């Protein structure tokens, strides 16, 4: 079973050389720490920055330079700044190759719910609806089950949707799963020490299991 950093590490392996990537808040943010040194990846922050650098050194924070999580960050040589409309323009026109974000629920046809729980204070969807409706490739980073122990991989989402038929892949503490175009979660990899039977037991949506499901290689 993986911890949050393990999930981030496994997702980092999905990132291709020479690609533009948008990382959501939470586990996706951690992915940046595990991108291999030998590949070129440019991080887009939807508040208006292409080429997001690391956090600033203590004392060098700039109030005018933040990421979409409102954290102080830095630019890199070759960064570009733009307004919010152009930022989502490049997202909508699919110039961002990969979006990684968290979710409360994913359905077996790729629907995602990650912004609203009826009856609870709703903070808003931020840029998530734009990202999931536009991105060519969407990977979800999440726990396999919720705090109540219920599967987050469902036949259909029960929570209000963020987007439909958009998630391509899911990485949880237990497994890597691909959402098939015809519907269904195809189990691609198991986390170290996790059995196929256990993954079956916590996956409510349709699970497609090949004869051999390899264990993840994350280091």
């Amino acid at each position, binding site marked *: 079973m993986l911890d949050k950093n393990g999930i981030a590490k496994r997702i980092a392996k999905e990132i291709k050389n020479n690609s533009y990537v948008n990382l959501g808040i939470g586990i996706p943010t951690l992915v940046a720490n595990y991108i291999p040194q030998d590949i070129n990846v440019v991080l887009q*922050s*939807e*508040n*208006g*920055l292409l080429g997001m650098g*690391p*956090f*600033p*050194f*203590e*004392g*060098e*924070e*700039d*109030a*005018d*330079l*933040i*990421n*979409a*999580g*409102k*954290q*102080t*960050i830095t*630019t890199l040589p070759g960064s570009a*700044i*733009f*307004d*919010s*409309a152009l*930022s*989502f*323009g490049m*997202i*909508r026109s699919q110039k961002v190759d990969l979006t990684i974000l968290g979710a409360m629920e994913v359905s077996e046809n790729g*629907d995602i719910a990650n912004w609203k729980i009826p009856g609870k*204070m*709703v*903070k*808003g*969807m*931020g*840029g*998530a*609806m*734009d990202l999931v*409706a*536009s991105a060519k490739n969407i990977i979800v980073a999440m726990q396999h089950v919720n705090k109540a122990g219920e599967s987050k991989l469902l036949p259909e989402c029960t929570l*209000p*949707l*963020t*987007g*439909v*038929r958009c998630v391509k892949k899911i990485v949880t503490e237990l497994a890597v799963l691909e959402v098939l175009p015809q519907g269904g979660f195809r189990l691609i990899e198991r986390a170290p020490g996790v059995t196929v039977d256990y993954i079956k037991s916590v996956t409510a949506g349709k699970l497609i299991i090949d004869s051999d499901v390899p264990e993840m290689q994350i280091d």
Partner: protein
Amino acid sequence: MINKVVVNADEAIKDIQDGMTLMLGGFGLCGIPENCISALVKKGVKELTCIANNAGVDDFGIGLMLQKRQVKKMISSYVGENAEFERQLLSGELEVELIPQGTLATRCMAAGYGMPAIFTPAGVGTEVAEGKEVRNFHGKDYLMELAFDADFALVKAWKGDTAGNLVYRSTARNFNPVMAMAGKVTIAEVEELVELGELDPDHVHTPGIYVHRIFQGKDYEKRIEQRTVRTK
């Protein structure tokens, strides 16, 4: 050139009335029109509809206007951490319309470009789509979303000249340029008001034609919401 300079925030906002719709630039607390917000709090104008990506925090940004119950409705994409906001929302004192962030930005931009509506895939198949026209182009569904209309747009720039040309600094740009283009009246506050000719025409982000009033702001706090650092 046309001189857009007014003496201060009080003068700039003097004709903002109860019940009006305002756009306020900024993302989180970054690039917000601090001086205009202070002046609005001082003036005590009420029943405002505010179009802004966020609603500030309890004691800064739009949060200051919420404390004074000046806001009737927020139109935002993410309302973040704000206890007073939450209290007013749950008690029904405050109305909130949540809009995808890209849709929010593009609806502002549309107004500045004289486009009455735009198409976006954001929100298709979700509750955001309710009551909206869905249209298919090249096999993909889009929602038709209308341009925003605001009585006043309040934006913050780094530098501006007396003709209203604006230059933003770093990610404090965010929603400011698109809102600057969208106000029936646009008020810009700047950290540094400069003379004509001091801004390179090639570097102007918002041409002065969109700006009706500009003033030299003061006492910028530029509060950081999430100070995140690494050690050397």
